[in-house]
């Protein structure tokens, strides 16, 4: 078997490679808008409803174009039915599930007919269920390239309208930038990109490529234009790698979907770990601040006395003091170094300044300000400190009549 890089050039494999890569990129980019608008399940309906169309198209014309035209018409019918049903009192998810099952059932009925009329067409039919990208040829590239580039171009050209429509429909209508045609444009793009991907990804897993790259892109950035780019890149990457894996005789759809899901899970876990790490770092910093403050105020002899002041487990304290000692804030016998003393002074100063501010300027009761100051002493920046000093005219004492150190 060849190397992944060679896929782009190999005369037999370049067709499937470029085809899969392009359609996956387009599908993933449309998926970003779909997941912002919570319409990914409509993509699922389109892909399942396209199946009877594929069967009919293959029955009539026996080539890819026929299958795609049939699929397009059938998916359009399903979308119209959804529109009609959603105006009745049916729940939206019931309507989706109803149409999905109905159209797919029709597809299976038609496929069972094909099975006996054209036995060799059955292989082609089942290949649309899970995708069979290696059966594409060079002639397919052009078709898929046109479709994918068309979809991506439309996304770029109408980006402003799509963005506004995705987030604020009222504003979109008022500013004249959107309205009905943007919705039609989005549905059209969804339709075209799902249909184009049926050969590569398959009926059953096309919606995976709508969801997974969009989820991954959302974890990497929070701007819509960057999300589109990221999703398209991830989609292309998954298409390429999934196709490479499918050379070992597995259907390409599940592999492409699995790659996309793995990328999405990876980014999700990265986000989770980042959040945990940030939280842990902040907690460690608070602990260090509290220890320095306690040493500055009460000069504890040993860890037990320190624990009485700061709280927390003995092991946590041992690790935290070890860390402080290594960074040079405290000496071996729990005494502050010069740097440590300076930092402890600053924390106490911030604590008492904040208490003075809450009592003098906000008008809170003296008894209530301590808990808030316990939290704020870790957060206040030098700029806030300078402003507080200016506002309070550089006070010498806090509301509890303790001196404010400088």
């Amino acid at each position, binding site marked *: 078997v060849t190397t992944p890089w060679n896929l782009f050039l190999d005369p037999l494999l370049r067709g499937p490679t470029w085809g899969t890569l392009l359609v996956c990129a387009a599908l993933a980019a449309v998926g970003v808008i779909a997941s912002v608008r919570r319409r990914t399940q409509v993509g699922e309906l389109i892909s399942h409803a396209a199946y009877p169309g594929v069967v009919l198209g293959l029955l009539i014309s026996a080539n890819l174009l026929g299958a795609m035209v049939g699929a397009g018409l059938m998916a359009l019918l399903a979308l119209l039915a959804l529109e009609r049903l959603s105006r009745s009192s049916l729940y939206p998810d019931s309507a989706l599930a109803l149409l999905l099952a109905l159209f797919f059932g029709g597809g*299976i009925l038609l496929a069972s007919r094909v099975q006996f009329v054209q036995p060799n067409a059955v292989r082609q039919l089942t290949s649309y269920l899970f995708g069979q990208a290696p059966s594409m040829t060079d002639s397919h590239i052009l078709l898929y390239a046109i479709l994918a580039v068309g979809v991506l171009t439309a996304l770029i050209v109408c980006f402003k309208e799509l963005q506004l429509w995705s987030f604020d429909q009222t504003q979109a209508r008022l500013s004249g930038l959107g309205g009905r045609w943007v919705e039609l444009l989005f549905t059209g793009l969804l339709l075209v990109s799902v249909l184009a991907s049926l050969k590569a990804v398959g009926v*059953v897993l096309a919606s995976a490529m709508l969801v997974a790259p969009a989820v991954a892109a959302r974890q990497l950035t929070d701007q819509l234009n960057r999300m589109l780019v990221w999703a398209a890149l991830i989609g292309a990457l998954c298409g390429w790698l999934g196709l490479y894996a499918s050379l070992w005789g597995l259907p390409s759809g599940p592999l492409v*979907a699995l790659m996309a*899901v793995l990328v999405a899970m990876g980014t999700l876990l990265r986000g989770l770990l980042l959040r945990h790490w940030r939280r842990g770092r902040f907690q460690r910093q608070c602990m260090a601040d509290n220890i320095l403050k306690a040493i500055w105020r009460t000069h504890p002899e040993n860890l037990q006395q320190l624990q009485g002041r700061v709280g927390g487990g003995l092991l946590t304290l041992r690790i935290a003091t070890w860390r402080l000692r290594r960074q040079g804030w405290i000496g071996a016998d729990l005494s502050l170094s010069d740097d440590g003393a300076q930092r402890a002074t600053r924390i106490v100063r911030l604590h008492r300044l904040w208490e003075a501010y809450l009592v003098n300027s906000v008008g809170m009761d003296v008894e209530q300000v301590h808990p808030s100051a316990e939290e704020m002493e870790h957060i206040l920046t030098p700029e806030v400190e300078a402003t507080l000093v200016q506002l309070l005219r550089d006070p010498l004492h806090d509301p509890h009549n303790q001196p404010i150190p400088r």
Partner: protein
Amino acid sequence: MSYGEQPFWEFLALWGQRLFQFLPLDQWALDEIQLAVLVLLGCCGAMVGSWLVVRRLAMVANALSHTILIGLVVAFLVGGGLWGLLLGALVAGLLTGGMTDWFSRALRLSEDSAIGLTYSALFSIGVIALTLLTKNSHLGTEAVMGQIDALDADDLRQVAWITGFNCLLGLLFYRGYLISAFDGALARTLGFSSSWLGRLLMAQVALTSIGAFRAVGVVLVVALLVLPPLTARLYVHRLGAVMGLAAGISALASLLAVALSRHCLTAYQLPLSTSGLLVLILGLFYFISLAAIKVRIRYRVSHVAHCVTR
């Protein structure tokens, strides 16, 4: 004994005759086994699907009916059989529910993204694992399409056990489901845990799907779950009545589907998929009922208008 090549009405007549002979199971014809399996699945579908519809979980059920492939992998690994299937259903149901919950709570994904991601992950892994384990690339296709003509008496026994178990669960937790579906606050006050009941419902969907995958395939399970309760809800409103009517509708549609597929084979030499026919007939029932209800409403409105103007 086989029905051979019977046209529509003769099939029904013969079936009616044989129904009252109360034959033992080993003398049942293939068609009768098919029909019995479909009727039992219809009962399961009505029982579980009614809750899905009123709790607006139809698309979650769609995802679960796909992710059941993981359950099939588990069943295959432990060596099949009824207990293998039950274990598989349990694993698939809990995994799907747990992953969706985890995605939406811990990772803060929106509900439809969470469902979509779970569905894609488990289904793709399921197809790949089944293909690798069984060295048979058609098994995935079979699981999606169903293989109704390969059913035998053992399958019927399995489906019967699964249906019995499902109905038992459904009856035991009827009140809990009812209260948590319509009044979450009351359910909490009375001590029903909505999240556990939700998980139990998912396990029941998984049970139904795994019972049905051989007969109708995983995608059409959704039809059995959603279409009959929706049709029944057009006529009746009490939940017990919806379940009963839905089961009746499924049974009637199953009978028609089996008879019709035999008829097409005999009269037109047209072998049609029984499960595909079943779904279309169920859909037809729904849309005919919808139209009938609309006509009735229009008639009543015009009647009232007529009375008022007079």
